[in-house]
Every structure is written in structure tokens, then in C-alpha cells.
């Protein structure tokens, strides 16, 4: 399960791309060019990038709203993301949904919905289908502490366990669910404790150590692929911004935030890259310059993209919708004539 030099370089690029793309999004948000909230991955990049990095070609991922890094690892492009956050007509969701809520099925990337926990049984159903079709696919989804409180999570894990379905649920322990601290969200000592009640395997890993996350996630993915059933991988990390950019996070402890800022996952990986000689400061600077150039182009391209135009017939709700199109069209201005 050694993470090779080439893989470490790829990981570094994913981590930095996640952070720099997010900084572009902050700028767009402040310019009023984004639609809706901005849910930061800041401080959690090693978990978002590292766990998804353990998946293989053909595997499936359903990230949740804060997992920009995972979405990029799975093959979404910065311009896809930027069009999504600006709800452009050529965004993957065509302006009908925003942010990370989109599907790229050819890349094994599927959309969660806002209701937390729902993706667990959905990803379980995906791999149930793949198993039936003879594919050894693993499905992965992410959830925070809040998500593990939902009935949907418990039902989904229970179903997946009974069916021995190959799913990995990455439990991002990031200290807060919106404003609610972890001790108000969960009475168990760890989120991984929840695995025992369903007879599934679990592990806890330092979510700010990207190499540790990759190695633990690879073990979890292998466990699932070998037919042992679901795996809960708890990654201990920290959400350094509020629930979204509007949230000033007045409820958090400043010392706690300062401590976790010192534990920044990217700076930590950079120290490792220095010590191991995998990627020195000059080489990292070159990576940053390359990403900056890519993002300049992506922002320009996404800003130039058209906004979606309303359809007088409001089509696209069902494949066969002729009967309803006529009724819907009556609601358009002057529809009744």
C-alpha cells in the first residue's frame, strides 16, 4: 500500500488545486458572481482528496457538498465546478442545481442531494446493480457527524451490511455540523463506534495526513472489493471555515481554530515532500504556477459561459412528459390565452 513518488506528486497537485480553486471561488463569491452558498473544503483537503484517491478506474463516488477535493480527484474539471457555482447553462447541471450537485457518470461521479445520509443507500444500490451485472465496483460516499445522525445513514449501512455490499463511507469528523459541536451531535466516543452496531468494519485515521488517509482508504476499498461488506473510515479533521461563507463561525473556540490552522494538511504534506525530496520548493512553485494558469483560463471560460434561458414548456422533468408539458405551459405568462 506504499504511495509511490508519482502518486505523491499527483496528490500534491490535487490538494493544491482544491485550495487554489476554492480561493478563486471565494473571490467570485465576494464579487456576487456565485449563486448560493460557498461550502469550504479548507482544512479538510487531505480527507477529501486522500480517500477518493484510493478508488480505482470504474469505481463510484458520491461526494457531499464540502468534498471539492474528492470531486476533482474523480475527474471533474475546474471549469465544470466554476460553471456549477455560477449556475451557467453549460454547467453539468445546466443551472438546475448548483455547486457539487452534478453527475458525470462516465467518470463514476454521482450527485448527492442536500438531505444528509441519503447517499449511503443510493451508493449501496449502485454497487448492488454493478455486482448483479458482474462488475467488482466499489462505491464511496462521504458524511460528517451530522450526516451520521440521520436515519438514512443507519438504514443505508444496515442494508449494505446485510447485503455485504462493497461501499466505503468516509466519515469526515470535522468538529461542527453547521454550528453544532460534535459532542452535541453524537453521544458515542467516535463515529467509527457506529460500525459495531451493524457488524461492519471501521478504522480511524488522522484526516490531515494525506498519506495516512490514502493508505487507510486503500485498505477499506480492498476490504469492500473482496466481498467483506461495508467499511466506515473515520477521518479526524477540522472545518476551518463556517458552514458556508456567510457564517462568521462566532460559535467556535479561537484557540481550537488556531491549533488546527497550525495542523494545515497541505503545509504538513509540503514538509514531508521537502524531507523526502519527492518535490522540493522550486518544483512545488512550478506546480502552483501551472495551476494558476489553468485557473485563469477556467475562470475566464466559465464567466463567459451563457446563463440558462427559461423554457416556456419547462421540459426535462420526465422523459415522457407530453401530457404535463401542456399544463405546465399554462403557468407561463399568458398561458391560458
Amino acid at each position, binding site marked *: 500500500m506504499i504511495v509511490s513518488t508519482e502518486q505523491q506528486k499527483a496528490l500534491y497537485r490535487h490538494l493544491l488545486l482544491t485550495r487554489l480553486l476554492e480561493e478563486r471561488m471565494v473571490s467570485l463569491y465576494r464579487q456576487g458572481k456565485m449563486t448560493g452558498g460557498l461550502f469550504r473544503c479548507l482544512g479538510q483537503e487531505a480527507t477529501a482528496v486522500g480517500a477518493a484517491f484510493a478508488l480505482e478506474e470504474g469505481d463510484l463516488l458520491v461526494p457531499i457538498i464540502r468534498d471539492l477535493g474528492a470531486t476533482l480527484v474523480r475527474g471533474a474539471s475546474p471549469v465544470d465546478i466554476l460553471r456549477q457555482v455560477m449556475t451557467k447553462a453549460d454547467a453539468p447541471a445546466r443551472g438546475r442545481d448548483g455547486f457539487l450537485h452534478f453527475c458525470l457518470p462516465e467518470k463514476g461521479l454521482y450527485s448527492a442531494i442536500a*438531505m444528509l445520509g*441519503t447517499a449511503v443507500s443510493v451508493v449501496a444500490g449502485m454497487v448492488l446493480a454493478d455486482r448483479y451485472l458482474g462488475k467488482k465496483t466499489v462505491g464511496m460516499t462521504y458524511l460528517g457527524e451530522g450526516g451520521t445522525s440521520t436515519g438514512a445513514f443507519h438504514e443505508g449501512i444496515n442494508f449494505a451490511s446485510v447485503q455485504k455490499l462493497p461501499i466505503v463511507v468516509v466519515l469526515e469528523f470535522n468538529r461542527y455540523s453547521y454550528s453544532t459541536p460534535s459532542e452535541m451531535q453524537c453521544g458515542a466516543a467516535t463515529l467509527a463506534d457506529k460500525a459495531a452496531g451493524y457488524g461492519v468494519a471501521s478504522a480511524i485515521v488522522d484526516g490531515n495526513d494525506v498519506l495516512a488517509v490514502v493508505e487507510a482508504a486503500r485498505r477499506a476499498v480492498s476490504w469492500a472489493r473482496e466481498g467483506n461488506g461495508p467499511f466506515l473510515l473515520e477521518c479526524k479533521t477540522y472545518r476551518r471555515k463556517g458552514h458556508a461563507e456567510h457564517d462568521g463561525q462566532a460559535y467556535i473556540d479561537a484557540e481550537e481554530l488556531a491549533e488546527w490552522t497550525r495542523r494545515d494538511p497541505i503545509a504538513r504534506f509540503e514538509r514531508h515532500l521537502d524531507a523526502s525530496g519527492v518535490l522540493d520548493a522550486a518544483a512545488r512553485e512550478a506546480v502552483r504556477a501551472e495551476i494558476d494558469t489553468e485557473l485563469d483560463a477556467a475562470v475566464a471560460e466559465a464567466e463567459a459561459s451563457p446563463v440558462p434561458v427559461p423554457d416556456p414548456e419547462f421540459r426535462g422533468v*420526465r422523459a415522457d412528459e407530453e401530457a404535463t408539458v401542456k399544463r405546465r405551459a399554462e403557468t407561463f405568462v399568458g398561458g391560458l390565452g
Partner: protein
Amino acid sequence: MSGDVSGRTSHEVTYVDAIRIALGEEMERDGRVILLGEDIGVYGGAFKATAGLLERFGPQRVIDTPVVEEAIVGAAIGASLRGLRPVVEMQFFDFAARAFDMITNFAAKHRYRTGLGVPIVIRGPSGAGVHAGPFHSQSPEGYFARTPGLAVVVPSTAADARGLLKAAIRDEDPVLFLEHKLLYRRAKEILPEGDGAVPIGKAVVRRTGRDLTIVTYGAMVPLALDAAAGLAREGVEAEVVDLRTLLPMDEETVLESVRKTSKALLLHEDARTLGIGAEIAATIAEKAFEWLDAPVLRVTAPDTPIPFAPGLEAAYLPGLSTLLAAARRLAAY
């Protein structure tokens, strides 16, 4: 329990057997069709709608699940996104409340949001009349029939139960298929020859008449036909429209009938307030106002939970005398 071979049956088949036949025929025709539900495999379903299917198609295709309605629908959604055609049984349709989020937020909105359809069917017994109390008797179609993205199907005959279920399984998007448990063994007929699929979204006129139109569905259809027979003896010819699908609504068939009879009586077992009747009444008011000779009337269940005791339940359900009284009132205009 015969009739597993496609085509006209030599004898009458019950509504519940028609469901089982449709499932078997579709599973035979299309290897992508799988079933998920509680007690559907070894036990054959609480009402035996899936009896024998585990033996025929195996545990990979007939999956007994834990009591996890939300996860069953979630798993069906996921499986459909990977190319299967899952059919979920709700042991009682009341339990779809446990999966409301998955149905209305995940499944119903998926094509609109992402461009990818979710071809799943959620089927099971709804309706009262068998003394099953407040949690096993509901008609929850109203909760779903106003959710864009869903289709809501409510068959009233054995042939429609088979034919509409086939159409539902072949549909590219989520279909809620509300069977009526009172009809399971009461409704029976010789099934038509051939595939027998019945298109979703088309109502049917079950009895023609010139004096007034009764618009209804499900187990209220036989009641409406009984009433129409009684009215005929009084010289009143009632037309009976069986909606068969609530979403999308076949408003053309309803409006055509009302424009002919000029009087509309809307009959449903679901509660009154914001029931299907309200939507039909509004549609008639918008589009057939000039043809009306009388107010649009509704005969429905009252806005209460469904009581357990047989006598209380009988009073709760729309009955023949109430329906006849309303029809006579309309006819008198």
C-alpha cells in the same frame, strides 16, 4: 394461480394475481428488472403479490430486505442509475411515508437536476375497507400526485393492474403504483391477449351516460358503477370516468365527458382537502365553465384518520347512499 404465460387467460384472474403475472412477465422479458422489499421472497409478499418469483428468478433478483423503507428506495434509485429496473414493494403504501424524502427529493427531482432518469417503480397496497386501521388503510396518493417528476398510477381492474404495471416498469422515470388492497381478490377478469401493456396517463370511460359524469379511480370505480346502475333504474344516465393515472392527469378525457354531460361529480377515497378532486374541480372551472349546468360536487372521505372498527370505517368511506344522494342532487339541476 396460472396465467404466467403471456396472453389471454382461459379463466378469470384476480387483481393481485395480475400484479404477480405482470412482474413475472417483465422479469422474463427484461433481465434488468429486480424486486426489492420486505418479506417478498421466501414469504411471497404480505398479500402474495410476489409468490413464486424467488423460486423462478433467484435471490439476486428477488431481494428480501430489512425493515428499511428509506434505504430500499435509495438502493432502488442507485441500482436504476447503474442500468437496472428495480421494482420496490411497500408492504403497505402507508409505509411510503418512511421513504418520502427518497421519493420526492431524490427520485422525483433527479432527471430535472442531472439529466439522468431514475426508472424505478414503487408498488404496493393502499386503501381502506379491510378493517386495517389508521396505518394500513391510507390512500397516500395525494402526497405524491403533486410532486413534479413522479407518475402516480391507480388501477381499478385486473387487466389494468397487469397492463399499467408493465408500462410502469418500462417507463424511464419513477412511477408510484398504488394498488387497492380491497380489489386484490374481488376484482377479477379474463386478461386480454398479447402483451397487454396499458399506457400511463390515459383515463378510460367505464360506462357512458349523458346526464352526469362521475370521475373516480381505484376501489371507488366499482362503487361508481354500482351507483350508475342504480341511477339508470331512476332514469339518470351517469358516465363513469376511471382516471387510472393521477399524475399526469388525463384532463382531456375528463373535460370531454363534462362538456357532454354538463355535470361533474368527483369521487375519491382519499381525504377531501386538497385531494385529487380539488385539482379536477379547478381544471373543470378553468376549462369547462361555460358547459356547466350545476356546481361541481365532491364525494370523498372526511378529513380524519381512518378508524379501525368496522362500523366506524364504513361510515368513513364514501358509500353507495352518499354517492346516490349527491348524484340525484346533481341530476335535479
